């Protein structure tokens, strides 16, 4: 088959490039806020007078918590688009669900890893199997890994999309459990209750956390945009291959028809 194109194209566009540049600038700003401008978490114990707190390990807050929230956003979008696909049955919903699930799984993996790294100095453990939030998050991650594995199976694309949409809708049931686990099973988790809900932080720490939410939302949006375009390209490439194969077969059939007609007349 001949190459249908004469140039290489990228999934970038003026809008996505502007978003990419703004994201990079935001990341630099977040690093300055997180590592230079904010103070470490140091408090004085009221009875012993000793310094207590998370010290500089608190700077992982500006990374771990925004990424956890983005994981919620990504998986919620994947489930919403999956429901949209089951109702509308159009590729746009399926490609959106697949892109959100893949990017969300990258974020979820990072939430687990950075949480583990943060847990070592603060809780004195890398992992706690009895912690409800850790386990529900791990289950959520594994279910979406299963979703992505299902997308790689050699099934009819429409069947695959339908099955994946059902898996996403089943997996998303775990999301409220992850979020509410610290309230519902507060004696079975090392995690504290919602930091923001009870406003335990303030001033520059709160501002930096908000900047973290915004910057990681921009990172997510940029990745989602490009991953969606990759999914759309995959569809377009598949359709082009099918159309080219049909055209080739028709040309072969026409050629053999002409040849046999020439053979009959000679």
């Amino acid at each position: 088959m001949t190459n249908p194109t004469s140039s290489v194209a990228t999934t970038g566009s003026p809008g996505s490039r502007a978003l990419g540049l703004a994201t990079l600038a935001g990341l630099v700003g977040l690093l300055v806020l997180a590592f230079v401008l904010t103070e470490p978490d140091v408090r004085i114990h009221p009875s012993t007078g000793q310094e207590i707190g998370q010290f500089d390990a608190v700077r992982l807050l500006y990374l771990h918590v925004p990424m956890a929230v983005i994981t919620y956003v990504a998986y919620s979008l994947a489930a919403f688009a999956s429901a949209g696909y089951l109702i509308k049955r159009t590729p746009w919903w399926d490609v959106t669900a697949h892109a959100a699930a893949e990017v969300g799984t990258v974020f979820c993996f990072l939430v687990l890893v950075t949480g583990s790294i943060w847990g070592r100095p603060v809780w004195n453990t890398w992992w706690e199997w009895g912690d409800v939030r850790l386990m529900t998050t791990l289950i959520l991650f594994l279910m979406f890994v299963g979703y992505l594995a299902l997308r790689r199976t050699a099934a009819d694309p429409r069947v695959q999309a339908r099955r994946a949409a059902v898996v996403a809708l089943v997996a998303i049931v775990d999301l409220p459990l992850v979020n509410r686990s610290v309230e519902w099973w507060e004696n079975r988790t090392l995690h504290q209750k919602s930091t923001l809900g009870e406003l335990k932080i303030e001033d520059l720490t709160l501002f930096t956390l908000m900047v973290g939410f915004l910057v990681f939302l921009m990172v997510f949006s940029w990745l989602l945009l490009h991953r969606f375009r990759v999914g759309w390209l995959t569809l377009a490439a598949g359709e082009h291959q099918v159309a080219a194969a049909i055209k080739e077969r028709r040309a072969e059939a026409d050629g053999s028809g002409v040849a046999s007609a020439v053979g009959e007349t000679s």
Partner: protein
Amino acid sequence: MTHLGYLLGGWGVAAVLLTVYAVSVVRRGRALSVSVPEDKRRWLTSQNPTDD
């Protein structure tokens, strides 16, 4: 600064993984674009045109 190793580990693994993933997505897009006709390249920006 206390806990420097943990900070570098946490922020470092996030930076590396997100960068590797972003690059892999862009490269997948570029590789796929070759097999798509130019009139079907919705949202895409052409690079290095050879026919003009």
